[in-house]
């Protein structure tokens, strides 16, 4: 009943012709139910596989280090000496900066004192150039 009214009210929208005939909503219900069921099953499968994955991986690589302190959160422990923390900070930034800036090699003459330039170059990883 409601459907008939709504359908009527949408006369403007329904493009005439066979190509876009308004389909019976039974199809819609089947589609919705089948879709939900399959996706539920899929998500359940993902959930189960994620649960199994660590065990499988442990079997495959039993010799991995025991608790590899999550490498994505870099912990910086500043020493009680303030200048040390400051220098580390500068060096980190300097390193990132000089990598980006103009891509040219910084040739740095280093003294013995722990200047930030020195720390920066210690942090340096050679960037893999690409072709």
């Amino acid at each position, binding site marked *: 009943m409601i459907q008939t009214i709504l359908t009527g009210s949408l006369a403007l929208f329904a493009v005439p012709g066979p190509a876009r*005939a308004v389909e019976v909503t039974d199809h819609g219900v089947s589609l919705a139910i089948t879709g939900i069921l399959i996706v539920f099953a*899929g*998500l*359940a*499968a993902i959930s189960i596989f994620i649960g199994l*994955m660590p065990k499988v991986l442990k079997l495959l690589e039993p010799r991995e280090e025991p608790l590899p302190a999550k490498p994505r959160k870099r912990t910086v422990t500043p020493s009680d000496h303030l200048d040390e923390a400051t220098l580390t900070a500068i060096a980190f930034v300097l390193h990132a900066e000089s990598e980006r800036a103009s891509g040219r090699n910084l040739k740095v003459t280093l003294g013995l004192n722990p200047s930030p330039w020195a720390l920066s170059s210690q942090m340096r990883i050679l960037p893999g150039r690409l072709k």
Partner: protein
Amino acid sequence: MTVPQLLGEYLNRSICQGMTLPHLLMILLGILLITLGGIKGYKPLLLLPIGFGMILGNLPGLQPVGASEFSLLEQGMRSGLFPALIFLGMGAATDFSSLLSNPKLVLLGCAAPIGIAMTLLGMNLAGVPLADAAAMSMAGAANGPTSVYLASKLSPDLIGPIAVAAYLYMALVPVIQPWILRGLTTREERRIQMPAIRESRKSERVCLPLMLFGVCVLVSPGSVWLIGMLCFGNLLREIGVTERLVTVARGTLLDAVTLLLGLMVGASATTTNFVTPATLLLLGIGLIAFVLATASGIGMAKLMNRVCDQKTNPLLGAAGVSAFPDSARIVHEIGQEEDPSNFLLDHATAPNLAGLIGSVLTAGLFWMWLG
């Protein structure tokens, strides 16, 4: 041609001459989106380009503008490249490890297909042809790029209004969801603290996107393009040897495509396809479906609490509606209202990702059956 003739032609072809009520409505809607994004702060990165694109695309008498100007952007949108680059950037920017820590939260992603199915049924019941209704249904999960992708397959003429509806809900998550969250959960439930996310090993984090991709391809072959890009972005991120590609995928490429796709989505919503009963219905039915999906997500979380020993904060269920990554943030904020020491953001990412994946899987199925 004399000066009076030129002036005559000038006045005849002015903007005012061709301005009709639908044009004006579209332009006002564009201004509204800009205001929502720019002043109210709802997803400005999306709503500002969409709003401005809507204005640009709906100025009357300018049919020449847009035919050629937008052509390359339109190729990017309709071919599926732009949505894919957005998924690539999301994958490269998002830490999936909360999935590893608590795999059962993935089940909460079922809220997304529920919202989608309800939108489909509502629109179809209202007389919208099934293929169009399926394309529109993605709005019920507030999933913008997937809407664009599915609409380009099933209902290319309606890509504009469908995508606008989806992005609009995504932007309005902070308006819609809090009431539902507060209304359907008790104070004690909102205070439930989740166990700390366990430290994951690199091998797990690298295998996760590959495994996700494999399962999704088997479950819904039509989802392979978008899920593939999401998983590839995350693989690049976790494998740790492709910093340059990760940086460009989650940075410049994501930002540039967000800007250009937004403009194009806005310009695709025109008077002829937007100011129609179907679009108005979609805005209403989609909203209802989104609300019900949120509710069913919360319900599912409560059900899980009945079954499992370890308690789950039912707020997390609301993140299963997709609307990535906004609903996760809302869950976090509502949790903190009750207990500022309750840090739910990382936990809510798991159902949020699951909802995102669930909505893409559903899109893939609809494409397979109706494409």
